[in-house]
């Protein structure tokens, strides 16, 4: 049981450290960016790590969140705090029917369908004319409140991560979490448990979209400017990379991945070579440790019970899994 609380504890510590260390503006904006990427990676962690659905569209959902708040604040003067629930809910509302459409597809085709969806969203945003600012995007997005400083925004961003991890941890420890994991492993087994597989898949996809929308909302208010390619497909792929490297199946994995990779990027030579790093990192992780950093660590520690079972050499019939 105590293991279930450790994600939250570690996260709070990390958040505090980030805030304490950050006095320089450059570090603060990096820290905020890491928080936002953590959310995107968590979105992948939930959808793919727990739900088994590989979606390359999380960036697109973040875009929807960003544009929602961008449009509502600049064109209609609505306060950012009121746009927050909409920025989270609108991606979810769009995600549910999309999930229903794509969940019968095989995993590979599903991933490609999400890729198509993401491209469609990007093109629609680019051609939105006056509403979305076209390919130039929207600027002049107001801060969250008048006295917003990089320090306070950093705090809010990390608070968002903490809240999401809290909800995520609780979800996975409940009957819902068990159903989600069963659906990922074996949908026939899930059906035999009485689970409506399609409903669970839509749910997971929707929640992931909501988290991505939150990330978009934050980014819009930090940068005060958004454009259609801000959360394009490379960002979605980056999010997948962070989740996979950190350990998509472990709750804190994506956050670890986001932190590690973002810190690495800081020391990388140039913009152009980034893709080579992303690609190599993804391939290396998949070949060496497909369950990511945290997944690897977790598998190294066998359960205490099994150790005592092994030492007591009882007459054991064939093992269930060699």
């Amino acid at each position, binding site marked *: 049981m105590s293991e279930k609380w450790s994600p939250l504890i570690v996260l709070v510590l990390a958040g505090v450290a980030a805030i304490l260390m950050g006095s320089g503006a450059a570090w603060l904006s990096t820290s905020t960016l890491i928080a936002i990427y953590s959310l995107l990676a968590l979105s992948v962690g939930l959808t793919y790590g727990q739900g088994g659905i590989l979606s390359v569209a999380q960036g697109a959902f973040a875009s929807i969140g960003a544009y929602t708040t961008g449009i509502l604040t600049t064109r209609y003067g609505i306060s950012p705090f009121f746009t927050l629930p909409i920025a989270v809910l609108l991606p979810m509302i769009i995600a549910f029917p999309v999930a229903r459409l794509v969940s019968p597809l095989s995993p590979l085709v599903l991933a490609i369908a999400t890729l198509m969806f993401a491209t*469609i969203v990007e093109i629609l945003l680019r051609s939105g004319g006056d509403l979305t600012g076209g390919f130039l995007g929207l600027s002049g997005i107001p801060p969250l409140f008048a006295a917003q400083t990089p320090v306070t925004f950093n705090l809010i961003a990390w608070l968002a991560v903490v809240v999401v991890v809290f909800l995520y941890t609780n979800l996975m420890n409940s009957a819902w979490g068990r159903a989600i994991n069963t659906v990922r492993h074996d949908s*026939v087994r899930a059906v035999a448990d009485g689970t409506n597989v399609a409903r669970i898949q839509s749910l997971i996809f929707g929640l992931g979209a909501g988290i991505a929308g939150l990330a978009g909302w934050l980014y819009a208010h930090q940068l005060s400017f958004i454009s259609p390619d801000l959360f394009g497909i490379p960002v979605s792929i980056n999010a997948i990379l962070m989740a996979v490297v950190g350990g998509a199946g472990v709750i804190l994995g994506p956050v670890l991945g986001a932190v590690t990779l973002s810190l690495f990027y800081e020391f990388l030579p140039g913009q152009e*070579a980034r893709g080579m790093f992303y*690609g190599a990192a993804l391939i290396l992780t*998949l070949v060496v440790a497909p369950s990511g950093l945290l997944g690897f660590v977790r598998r190294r520690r066998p359960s205490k019970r099994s150790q005592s079972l092994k030492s007591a050499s009882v007459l054991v019939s064939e093992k269930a899994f060699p």
Partner: protein
Amino acid sequence: MIDFIILGIVVGISYGLLALPLSLLFIATGTVDFALGAYAVVAGLVCFLVGGELGIAAGVLSATLAAGIVGVISRLLDHKRRADHLTLVLASFGFAIFLESLVLSTYGEQPFVRHSFVDYWDIAGVRVSPQAGIDLAAALVVLSATFALLYATPVGRMMRASAINPLGAILTGIPVQWMRALTFVFAGLLAGVAGVLYLYTSGLSYSSGMHLALSGFGAAIIFGLKSPLRAFLGGIAIGLVEALSNGYLPSHVATVVPLIFIFIVLILQGTSRTLSGGRA
């Protein structure tokens, strides 16, 4: 209307060129190599830089070698128990990004193209470069070659067996894992050929890879991922959709129509599968 159709077919031939290796790979291994578009770009770049006949050979060779890397990765992943179906696909994604960045770092953002024809044909009032004819001829050659390979050779039989029933294939002595790796390499070779042709048709740039792979996959799947012929025809179909929507719809809507078309086809294929499959 006829001019858009001609245009659509010309563009469609281009899409079909990459759809061929994509479908071949899927038929023989059940997976997709996302880096196929990137191999085409690499082949095009190498051909561009080297130039001449040697350039063409060098281009195709470089694409084949690049695909060889994914072949190696697939063998490495074969030994991993924790890898799921998507692992190789994700890895190919990673490789595609790697290659894209490699091209960007070495050559830059500029597109690269070569034109070997100055005169144009006039087909029903449309200016068509003779290059299109070469593309079509090449596509037909590749098509017949892949058909021959898959359906008339023992190697092809083994490939198809490995895809339909991997376990059964292993039990009958087919080296399934090697077949798979080799198929990746062969698909890479075909992508290299496509890349060289693209260089001479409409040119390429560092970012073309992903778009090509996506359209190629879309083309391959429209009529069902069942045969290279269908994939090629799928390419033509997408070309037609694109040309017609460019002709009759405002430009910003036109770019999105082919994608929506592919998306809808994917969904419909998925739903029809569940309906015919019954309750389960």
